């Protein structure tokens, strides 16, 4: 009885207990960012660094503020390419992992080819993809996909292979079919391992999308970056870098949050 009461009490307080450290953490993060910004601004002024090398942060932000539409459009375009490539990479990677677990013959046949494909530098691969798909959004997504699917494949297979065989035996004794085993036991059990690859894939897919844009396009953060390089607009280049950093960090944070929400049981077992 008292245990039950304590439980409900804990559940009620859980919201606040969770919110307080989160707010504290957010405060520290903002403080850290503010200090970094101040150091940047101050160093440029104090050492009289020429803007060709490192423009002031305020100048970069002013550049973005002057023509925000271009940056917003570029941000959204690159985000879309990244997300499509990432999503495709995750789906294909997880399916590959399941397929390789079920059919070791296919694993032995295809896995070495996958490994070889990953040793091709992404730049060389990018040129090929543009030849095949033209200057389309799809071409960029394909490069993002190419960088994502392999780690997801490897980690899914690893996660599925390390499911406790005693747990499999137990569910089999209850009469579980292969499909039930996969959905109710193996995939959830492999989730922590899969998320390791998803976090990696979040950064890699952004790299893929930006590199893809270098082969020609009209919008995107990669395009802004390349054009600024050719026209020696250092401040614009820095603005594009800031936007890319924001995109990469945001995406990584989103994946990490999803992980904390889905894999709530943590490192147990």
């Amino acid at each position: 009885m008292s245990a039950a009461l304590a439980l409900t009490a804990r559940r009620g307080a859980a919201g606040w207990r969770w919110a307080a450290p989160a707010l504290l953490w957010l405060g520290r993060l903002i403080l850290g960012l503010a200090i970094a910004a101040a150091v940047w601004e101050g160093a440029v002024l104090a050492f009289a660094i020429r803007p060709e090398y490192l423009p002031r942060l305020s100048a970069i932000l002013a550049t973005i503020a002057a023509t925000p539409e271009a940056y917003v459009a570029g941000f959204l375009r690159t985000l879309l390419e990244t997300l499509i490539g990432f999503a495709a990479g995750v789906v294909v990677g997880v399916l590959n992992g399941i397929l390789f677990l079920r059919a070791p013959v296919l694993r032995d046949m295809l896995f070495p080819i996958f490994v070889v494909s990953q040793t091709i530098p992404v730049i060389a691969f990018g040129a090929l993809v543009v030849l095949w798909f033209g200057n389309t959004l799809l071409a960029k997504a394909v490069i993002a996909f190419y960088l994502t699917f392999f780690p997801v494949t490897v980690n899914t297979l690893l996660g599925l292979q390390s499911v406790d065989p005693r747990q499999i035996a137990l569910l089999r004794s209850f009469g579980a079919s292969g499909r039930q085993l996969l959905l109710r036991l193996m995939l959830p059990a492999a989730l922590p391992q899969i998320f390791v690859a998803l976090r990696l894939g979040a950064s890699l897919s952004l790299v893929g999308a930006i590199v893809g844009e270098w082969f020609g396009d009209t919008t995107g953060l990669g395009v802004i970056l390349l054009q600024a390089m050719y026209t020696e607009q250092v401040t614009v280049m820095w603005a594009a870098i800031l936007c890319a950093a924001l995109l990469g960090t945001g995406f990584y944070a989103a994946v990490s949050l999803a992980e904390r929400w889905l894999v709530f049981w943590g490192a147990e077992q």
Partner: protein
Amino acid sequence: MTETPTETARLLELRGIDKTFGTVQAVRGLTLSVPAGEFVTVVGPSGCGKSTLFNMVAGLDEPDPGGVLRFKGRSCHAHELLGRVSFMPQRDLLLPWRNVIDNAIIANEIEGADRKTARARALRMLPEFGLTGFEAQYPHQLSGGMRQRVALMRTFMFERELMLLDEPFGALDALTRSMMQRWLLDVWERHRRTVLFITHDVDEAIFLGDRVLVMTARPGSVKLARPVDLPRPRSAELVTSPEFIAIKREILAAIEEESMKSFMATGMRAA
């Protein structure tokens, strides 16, 4: 309707069962039968093939050809027993992403039962398993004894005539264990399922069982089947009664003999 009494009486029957893994013979000429409603406990030296016996009866391992395996009076293959007996392995093996209720109904879910009805039934069973108020907790929030009770509840929820319990209390401390034993008997007396129960602990085997089977050293077979004619319900003091001690002496002597054999055998192999 037309079944003869012996067919219904013998729920499970094994005759001349062998099982070999590679070059190791785990079980040889294993013969035993379990009447419906009986609580049978199995003891024996470690590595005597108790778990092999369970894996075969649970349908996970097929015995070598030649033996007879009968369930409910019908001869069958081991794999036909998948989904027909409720099996509880040594470890609780709870799924960490499922809360207490959803862990308890996993077997029902697998057999295609409606989740809502199964959850409602599990909720009603919680008090009996001492888990009231813990339905929404996750396994990592529970103590070892509670996790074990969730695993037992899962086994009871999967309503089959035959229950296989493989050292369910092996990992618990002595005090919790003796409480769990009395509690299990209590639950069993109300549900009256046929139970096959593996243990290392001779006291536990006698205290719980209607009959104690002592297994030989590997390759395993039944060395001794000792009926336990002690009255039920059984209380904790029973363990010190002369009748109990007499049975214990007899069983310990049988185990001792087998342990010596397996000890000598491994010693010889090492030398």
